[in-house]
C-alpha cells in the first residue's frame, strides 16, 4: 500500500489531472442522460435532487483537485522585509471575549506576554455584561499587567468591540485572537515582516490548530476538518489571492481595515465578510501555512453543532452578498477569486447535498421512484473512475501530511453528521434570517438529548426499511436494487456514528470509569 501511495504521490499532478477529467466526464454523462431520460414528474423531482447533490459534490471535488494541482511545486513563500532591531512597528495584540472562563483567558494572555516581538501592546477587549465576568477580567488584567478595553454601547458582537477599539488605536498593526487561541513566541516575528514588505497586503492569516484532539472523538473530528481546510484548500486560496480571514490568529494592517470601515458588523462571520470587502477594494491577503497558534476545538457534539451553525449561517449570508456583487461589479475580483469565494461561500450547503444523496436510494427502494438513469456499463465507466480517483487524490494529499486514514475518516463522518444543523442554518441564512451569535463552548461537558437526535433516528429507520423493501423485490431489478441497497447501507453506517460521537462526554466518561 505504501509503495502504491508513493508511486501515486510522485505523479500526483498527473493523477489529479486525470481525476479532474473523470469528474467532468461523469458530470457530462449525468447531465446528458438526465436531459434525455423519460421521467414522470415525481421521478423528475427526485432526479433533480440527486443531480443537484451530485453536482455540488463534483464542483467541490474539482475545486479541491485544482488546488491540489496548483500548490504542487508552487512557490508558497511571500516576500519578507528585513526589520532593523529597535525599529519594529507597533502591534496591538488583542483578545475579544464575552463571558469566557478566566482560566482559558489567562492561558491566552500568558502566551501574549511571552511573544518575543518587542513593540507590542496587549489588550483585553472585554465585552461582558455580567458583573462577575467584568470583575474577573479586571483582576486578570491587573495580575498580568495588561490593559482592559470596554465600550459604551454594545453593537455588532466581536466585530463591534474591535471596531470601537480600533477607533483609538495608535499601533500600525492589529493581531486578533479568540479567547482560547495561544500564539507561539515567534508569531509576530514571523508575520510582521510580510506586512512590512508589501503595503497592499491587508492581513496575514495562520492556521487554527486544535490541541485537545485526544479529548473526545468530536474533538478529533473537528480538528481533522480544520486540518483539511488549512492544508491544501487554504494553500490553494493563497495562490489565487483569495485567502479570507478566519477571525483569529491573524494580523491586520490597521489602515486597510479602516479603509473599508472596519470589521463588518452586519454578519456573524465578520471575518469572511470583511475579507470580501478588502479583496474587492484591491487589497491582498496572505496565508502563512505554518502552525503558529494552538487552540481548543469543540469537544462535544452540542459545542460542535453550535460552532457549525454559526459558521454556516454567517458564511451563507455573506455568500448572498458575494453573488450580488458578482452581478453588480464582476471586475471587482479576479476570475479565480470569484471561484474561490464561490467554493467557500457554498461549502455549507453540503448538508443539503448529503440529504439529497440520502433520500434518493430510499425513494427508489421504498416507493420505486428512480432518480438515476445510467446503464450499468456507463455507470461503471464514469462513476467508478471519478469516485475512486477523487478519493485517492484526497487521501494521498492528506496522508502526505501525515494524517492517517482513521483520522481523515473521523473528520469526514463528523462533517456528514452535521447535515440537519447545516440544512437549518443555511436555509435561515438564505432567507436573510439572523441567527443569534453563539459562542463555541470550551471544555463543555454536555451531550445532545436523545430527543434532539430524531433526524438521525428517522433517516436510519427509513434506510433500514428501504433495505428490507429492496431485499423483498430484489429479483425485479437486481442491479439497480443492489446499488441502491449499497448506498442505503453506507448511509446507515454514517448515521449510526452519531451515537459514538454523542457518547459519554469527557468528564462524565472519567467519572464513570472511576466508579
Amino acid at each position, binding site marked *: 500500500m505504501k509503495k502504491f501511495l508513493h508511486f501515486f504521490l510522485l505523479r500526483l499532478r498527473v493523477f489529479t489531472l486525470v481525476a479532474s477529467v473523470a469528474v467532468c466526464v461523469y458530470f457530462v454523462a449525468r447531465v446528458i442522460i438526465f436531459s434525455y431520460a423519460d421521467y414522470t414528474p415525481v421521478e423528475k423531482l427526485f432526479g433533480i435532487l440527486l443531480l443537484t447533490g451530485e453536482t455540488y459534490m463534483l464542483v467541490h471535488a474539482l475545486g479541491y483537485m485544482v488546488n491540489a494541482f496548483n500548490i504542487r511545486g508552487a512557490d508558497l513563500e511571500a516576500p519578507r522585509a528585513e526589520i532593523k532591531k529597535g525599529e519594529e512597528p507597533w502591534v496591538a495584540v488583542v483578545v475579544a471575549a464575552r463571558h469566557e472562563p478566566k482560566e482559558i483567558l489567562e492561558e491566552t494572555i*500568558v502566551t501574549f506576554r511571552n511573544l518575543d516581538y518587542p513593540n507590542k501592546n496587549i489588550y483585553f477587549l472585554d465585552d461582558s455584561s455580567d458583573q462577575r465576568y467584568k470583575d474577573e477580567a479586571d483582576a486578570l488584567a491587573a495580575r498580568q499587567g495588561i490593559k482592559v478595553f470596554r465600550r459604551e454601547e454594545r453593537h455588532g458582537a466581536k466585530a463591534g468591540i474591535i471596531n470601537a477599539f480600533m477607533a483609538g488605536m495608535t499601533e500600525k498593526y492589529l493581531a486578533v485572537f479568540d479567547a482560547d487561541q495561544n500564539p507561539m513566541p515567534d508569531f509576530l516575528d514571523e508575520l510582521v515582516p510580510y506586512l512590512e514588505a508589501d503595503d497592499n497586503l491587508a492581513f496575514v492569516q495562520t492556521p487554527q490548530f486544535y490541541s485537545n484532539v485526544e479529548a473526545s472523538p468530536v474533538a478529533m473530528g473537528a480538528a481533522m476538518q480544520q486540518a483539511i481546510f488549512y492544508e491544501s484548500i487554504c494553500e490553494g486560496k493563497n495562490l489565487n489571492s483569495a485567502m479570507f480571514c478566519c477571525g483569529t490568529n491573524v494580523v491586520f494592517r490597521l489602515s486597510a481595515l479602516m479603509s473599508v470601515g472596519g470589521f463588518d458588523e452586519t454578519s456573524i462571520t465578520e471575518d469572511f465578510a470583511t475579507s470580501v470587502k478588502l479583496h474587492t477594494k484591491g487589497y491582498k491577503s496572505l496565508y502563512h501555512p505554518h502552525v503558529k497558534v494552538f487552540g481548543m476545538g469543540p469537544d462535544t457534539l452540542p459545542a460542535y453543532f453550535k460552532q457549525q451553525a454559526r459558521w454556516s449561517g454567517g458564511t451563507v449570508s455573506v455568500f448572498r452578498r458575494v453573488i450580488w456583487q458578482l452581478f453588480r461589479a464582476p471586475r471587482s475580483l479576479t476570475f479565480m477569486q470569484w471561484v474561490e469565494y464561490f467554493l467557500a461561500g457554498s461549502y455549507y450547503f453540503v448538508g443539503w447535498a448529503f440529504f439529497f444523496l440520502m433520500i434518493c436510494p430510499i425513494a427508489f427502494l421504498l416507493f420505486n421512484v428512480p432518480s438515476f438513469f445510467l446503464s450499468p456499463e456507463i455507470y461503471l465507466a464514469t462513476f467508478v473512475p471519478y469516485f475512486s480517483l477523487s478519493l485517492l487524490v484526497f487521501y494521498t494529499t492528506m496522508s502526505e501530511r501525515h494524517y492517517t486514514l482513521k483520522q481523515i475518516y473521523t473528520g469526514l463522518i463528523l462533517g456528514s453528521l452535521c447535515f440537519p444543523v447545516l440544512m437549518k442554518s443555511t436555509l435561515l441564512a438564505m432567507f436573510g434570517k439572523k441567527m443569534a451569535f453563539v459562542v463555541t463552548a470550551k471544555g463543555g461537558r454536555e451531550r445532545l438529548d436523545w430527543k434532539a437526535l430524531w433526524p438521525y433516528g428517522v433517516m436510519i429507520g427509513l434506510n433500514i426499511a428501504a433495505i428490507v423493501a429492496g431485499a423483498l423485490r430484489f429479483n425485479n431489478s437486481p442491479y439497480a436494487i443492489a446499488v441502491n441497497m449499497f448506498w442505503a447501507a453506507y448511509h446507515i453506517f454514517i448515521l449510526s456514528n452519531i451515537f459514538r460521537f454523542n457518547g459519554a462526554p469527557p468528564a462524565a466518561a472519567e467519572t464513570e470509569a472511576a466508579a
Partner: protein
Amino acid sequence: MSVTKKELLKMIDDAIDLEEKSIPVYMKHINTALFWSGLPEWERKQLGIYLNMLAKESGKHSVKLNSLKKKIEQGGKDVY
C-alpha cells in the same frame, strides 16, 4: 536605573508566575504537535520523555527565582 526592593520582589514574583503558567500551556501544545508529527510512536514517546525533562528543567527556574527572592527579602538593601 534603579528599582526599590518592593518593586524588584514584585518583578520576581511576576517572573515566577509567568514561568509556572507558561510551562503547562506550551507542554500541552507541543505534545499536540508531536501527536500530528507523523513520527513513529516510539519516537514520539521518546520525544515526549525529553519534553517532560525539559519541563522539569524549566521548573528549576522558579526554584532559582524563589531562592533569589528569599535572599533579597533577607538582605539589607532597599534600592537595587
